[in-house]
């Protein structure tokens, strides 16, 4: 008994003729073909149809479809440029990410180091304060809570960076009166250290100059700014001067316990002693003279220990003065309970007279911490946007 041909049977027979049936389905269909003559006849008709279609003659193209090289050969650069756009865009995006990460890293480091940088003057304080304490145990200037252990640690690092000369000078400060000398160093030596000396005038030094004789000549005396009333000062200074010659004389504060500012010291070979009578041209309008009458405790001008280191020549480019002021009550030098006021430190720092603004950093001024990271961010983001656009255009054009 035969069954009528169903639509599914045509699909089975068609796939059977193309050998596209699974083995089980193929076996079932072959058993049906053996049993159903109508299904077998349909298979034969389909096989003949396929044979007719495959016998269709192949036509020869009426012409060649080749392209004219003169018309189409100039198409080479466009795909190369699009590929290059994608590659350059990817590289640019990677570089921008690196810049942004670098900016983040730099920003983090700047924020961490910003307090220390802004309090660089404070960083010198512990040493100066310690020197003051060593020279004058009765005066106990204490640092505030803000300039505590961290500032002391940073001060140690700063002194280490200042070099051996600076260390030696600062260590000699407590018991001496500074004598400013200019020492000419060989070029090989002078080229390396920028901070050459630290000059501090402790209260004891001011005591020795209690006769009202300023440490600096009258021509260099200039009152302090109004409203500023330090009672005791500790100044640490470092100066490096660059003469027009190849050698770089470095201002070096030497502390000599047997001499004070009033006693001229014979010039040593290679050194230039600055006598008190020698007119020193102050670099700063606020150039201050050491106050008098501080040792006697009599009221008088606000005592200070700030001193200006003169430059040997107009071509001097760097004067580093790190100053700290210990303020005591009632204008008394080294008074009990004297405190260092960090807020007043920048004003106590002598910064004017610089002929190069780049030296402002050496004065304890904190560089805006976000300057470098901001540049990294701006350049990185701009580069990222440009690279993404470049890559996107290249990718889109390659898809068209």
């Amino acid at each position: 008994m035969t069954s009528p041909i169903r639509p599914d049977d045509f699909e089975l027979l068609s796939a059977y003729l193309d050998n596209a049936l699974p083995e089980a389905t193929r076996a079932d269909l072959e058993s049906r073909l053996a049993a159903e003559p109508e299904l077998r006849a349909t298979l034969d008709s389909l096989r003949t149809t396929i044979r007719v279609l495959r016998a269709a003659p192949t036509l020869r193209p009426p012409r060649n479809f080749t392209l004219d090289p003169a018309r189409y050969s100039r198409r080479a650069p466009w795909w190369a440029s699009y590929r290059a756009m994608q590659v350059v865009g990817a590289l640019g995006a990677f570089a921008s990410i690196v810049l942004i990460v670098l900016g983040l890293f730099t920003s983090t480091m700047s924020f961490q180091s910003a307090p220390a940088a802004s309090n660089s003057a404070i960083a010198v304080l512990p040493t100066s304060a310690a020197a003051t304490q060593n020279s004058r145990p009765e005066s106990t200037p204490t640092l505030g809570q803000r300039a505590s252990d961290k500032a002391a640690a940073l001060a140690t690092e700063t002194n280490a960076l200042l070099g051996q000369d600076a260390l030696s000078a600062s260590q000699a400060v407590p018991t001496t009166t500074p004598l400013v000398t200019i020492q000419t160093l060989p070029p090989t030596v002078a080229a390396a250290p920028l901070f050459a000396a630290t000059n501090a005038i402790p209260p004891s030094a001011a005591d020795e100059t209690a006769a009202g004789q300023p440490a600096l000549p009258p021509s260099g005396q200039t009152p302090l700014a109004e409203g500023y009333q330090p009672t005791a000062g500790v100044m640490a200074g470092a100066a490096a001067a660059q003469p027009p010659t190849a050698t770089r004389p470095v201002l070096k504060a030497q502390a000599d316990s047997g001499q004070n500012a009033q006693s001229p010291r014979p010039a040593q070979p290679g050194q230039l002693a600055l006598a008190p009578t020698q007119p020193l041209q102050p670099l700063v309008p606020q150039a201050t003279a050491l106050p008098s009458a501080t040792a006697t405790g009599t009221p008088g001008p606000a005592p200070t220990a700030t001193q200006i280191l003169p430059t040997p020549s107009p071509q001097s480019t760097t004067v580093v003065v790190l100053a700290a002021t210990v303020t005591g009550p009632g204008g008394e030098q080294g008074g009990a309970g004297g405190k260092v006021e960090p807020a007043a430190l920048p004003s106590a720092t002598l910064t004017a007279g610089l002929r190069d603004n780049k030296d402002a950093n050496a004065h304890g001024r904190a560089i805006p911490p976000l300057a470098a990271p901001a540049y990294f961010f701006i350049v990185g983001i701009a580069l990222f946007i440009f690279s993404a656009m470049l890559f996107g255009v290249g990718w889109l054009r390659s898809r068209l």
Partner: protein
Amino acid sequence: MDELALIHEAQRGNVSSFNTLILHYQTSAYNLAYRLIGEPEAAADATQEAFISAYAHLMQFRGGSFKSWLMRIVTNACYDELRRRKRRPVVSLDDPEADTELQLVSPGEGPESLAQLNALNRIIQDCLDELSSEQRLVTVLCDVQGYDYQEIAAIAQVSLGTVKSRISRARQRLRDCLQDAGELLPESYRLNQRE
């Protein structure tokens, strides 16, 4: 012929390399276009457009069967031509018998054989024209040009099941068409008449 090397050269802008590929595939492309469109000139134009488009988009070829990729472009060009003809019907002023002047690759031996082939070609094309464009495509690819199901699915961009069902229905309709042709077909190709 190193097809891959020619493709790479053509991708770099070497037109001569692409022309070598054109010469290799132009017969298949033209026959596919002719079976899909049914008119020699329109098929030639569609084939030319397809090769130009293939060269313009050669960078999109990511490997695989270049022939299948090329035939898909030819198919799209033919579909564009068919849609254009559907919007603006074209009445040919040529003699309908002009098809007999088609140049065959294997014309056979003698004029009688050539006449049989031309008659067979005309009947087959008439039956193909009765199919839908989708059924015509899969049938031409499978039964005329001998592609397997996978290649047909890639060219037609449909699934294998769709290919099977389209081929089955197309063959069923072609069988009926060829049975109706009867004695117009050469004797060796005649199918049994329907009951």
